[in-house]
């Protein structure tokens, strides 16, 4: 059940914060150097990083639980043990992927 709620919450977050952030980035780039600079200041502020790291995690969590839905849609993976194993593994995997991506980004900036 938790994984289902997590799927919905991460989906809503991506749908609102993620999609708006993406469009803001594109519109800022299309508007000009000044608008883009404003975007960069916000995106690279401490809150900006928290939002971007949060969105990265939400994306991979949603992607992985979405793939789990694909498997369940096919009628597979309903055995208690299998179901439980994946529902524990996927959130861990999402955190590992998010951490790897951001460690790569921060390692390059240093």
């Amino acid at each position, binding site marked *: 059940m938790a994984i289902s709620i997590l799927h*919905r919450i991460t*989906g*809503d977050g*991506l*749908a609102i914060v993620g*999609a*708006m952030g*993406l*469009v803001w980035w*594109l*519109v800022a*780039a*299309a508007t*000009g*150097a000044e608008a*883009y*600079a404003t975007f*960069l200041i916000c995106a690279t502020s401490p809150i900006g990083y928290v939002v971007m790291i949060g969105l*990265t995690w939400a*994306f991979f969590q949603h*992607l992985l639980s*979405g793939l789990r839905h*694909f498997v369940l*849609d096919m009628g597979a993976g309903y055995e208690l043990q299998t179901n439980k194993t994946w529902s524990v593994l996927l959130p861990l995997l999402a955190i590992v992927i998010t951490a790897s*991506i951001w460690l*790569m*980004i921060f390692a390059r900036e240093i």
Partner: protein
Amino acid sequence: MGNGTSIGRVRGLGSAKSGAHHWIVQRFTAVGNLLLVLWLIFSILQMPGLDYESVVGWLSQPLVAVPMALMLVSIFWHLKLGLQVLIEDYVHDDGLKFVAIMALNFYAIGGAALGIFAIAKIAFTGGAAA
């Protein structure tokens, strides 16, 4: 008219009145998002920097602008379907549901249009208008 009876549900007259098409398009756009957003993440990670010139130069390439535009269609379509289910699940008042779904449609289509226009402007002007 399908007031919760089994046959009514089979005919697609449940609370949402239809569903199979919604369901399958949500899967198609999910795969679209999977491919296109992973492409975006890997592309961004490979870019030398995310400064204005790099980003505009990158977005002005046809093989970047087109997948980006497709990604916006896929993302906004998928989020429209997803948020619609959320509204149908939690908003029970018919009038409020109508307004919420309408606002969602404005958001989804408006957001996608804005994003695609931004990409098109960069692609066609090469960011020269700055």
